[in-house]
């Protein structure tokens, strides 16, 4: 009799548990992200160039200017101005004594500090604005530096026991890893007034096994891929696609 009672109660519990767990279904969503800046006053955008450095393997100014222009062409409503990028390093050095001039080769963030006045030079940017019919001007700094870090890395390894059965076990090894750090600062200048409207910074890094020969340029593009969505969402609204789980 007691066994029968236990059976009845356990079935009741099972029903309760099943109904509590419920079921789920996957659904696609598109999350809209509003633009950080209001650029409705502009019809054109001029990616003017960047103060760049860190490594000689990649021309940060040239590559960033090209990449941003091509992204803006397809993902923004602004008309992209095709013109040579500005000789910003020369402009920054103009009118300064040689010992006060910013370093010609930028190696680290400290070297970039010497260029801060360039972006705050309202007269210069206003003049550039007039030249290109008062666009939104995009400029800034790009530091792309080699990086090395030694650390414990976990990888999976196949092992076979005495019966020939295969197993995958985690193995921790000390590894030398090399890669790059990308630290861009994007500065948005109003071409009508020459003043800075907005600026945004990012920092991304990538590491590979020391024996893996990855070209610096492909690392640069991999890191820029991570930065670009945030850059674009400053200027135009974006929709980010994803999937979520609905529960019952």
């Amino acid at each position, binding site marked *: *009799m007691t066994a*029968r*009672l236990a059976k*009845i*109660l356990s079935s*009741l519990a099972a029903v*309760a548990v099943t109904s509590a767990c*419920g079921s*789920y*279904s996957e*659904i696609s*969503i*598109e*999350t*809209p*992200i*509003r633009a*950080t800046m209001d650029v409705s006053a502009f019809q054109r955008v001029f990616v003017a160039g960047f103060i760049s450095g860190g490594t000689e393997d990649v021309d940060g100014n040239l590559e960033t200017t090209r990449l941003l222009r091509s992204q803006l062409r397809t993902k923004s409503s602004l008309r992209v101005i095709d013109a040579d990028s500005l000789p910003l390093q020369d402009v920054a050095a103009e009118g300064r004594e040689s010992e006060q001039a910013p370093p010609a080769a930028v190696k680290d963030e400290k070297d970039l500090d010497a260029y801060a006045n360039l972006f705050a030079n309202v007269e210069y940017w206003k003049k550039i604005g007039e030249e290109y019919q008062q666009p939104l001007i995009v400029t800034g700094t790009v530091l792309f530096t080699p990086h090395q870090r030694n650390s414990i890395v976990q990888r999976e390894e196949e092992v076979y026991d005495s019966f020939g059965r295969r197993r995958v076990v985690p193995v921790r090894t000390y590894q030398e890893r090399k890669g790059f750090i990308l630290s861009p600062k994007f500065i948005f200048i109003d071409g009508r007034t020459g003043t*800075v*409207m*907005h*600026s*945004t*910074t990012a920092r991304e890094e990538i590491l590979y096994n020391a024996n893996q020969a990855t070209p610096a340029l492909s690392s640069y593009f991999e890191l820029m891929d991570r930065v670009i*969505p*945030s850059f674009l*969402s*400053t200027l135009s609204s974006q929709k*980010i696609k*994803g999937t*979520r*789980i*609905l*529960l*019952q």
Partner: protein
Amino acid sequence: MRTASVVLAGLLALAASPAWADARDDAKKQVEFGIAVAQRGLWREAIYRWERATQLDPTYAAALNNLAIAYEHEGELAKARGAYEKALELEPDNALIKQNYELFREINDRATRKDTQ
């Protein structure tokens, strides 16, 4: 006879709070309807249904999870965060809610990234 009375007592115990059970049943209907309309792309209607479900039963974590997803889809990120956090307070070990919340946070962090100027 004795067994029957024990089973009856068990059933009575299960139905001890009929008001709570009714509220959860009604909320569940709203959640199911919300899922059906969301799958057809009618997100505003889904929000209405899931908000109703959370009013009927404020302890219904699944309803809060779904509401958070709908707010996300509509770009109401602050409301989405609030709903996810309430859902996780109610069911901190629910792996599916946690997964949704992690994905949401990636987007939310990007949208609210600290910019200068």
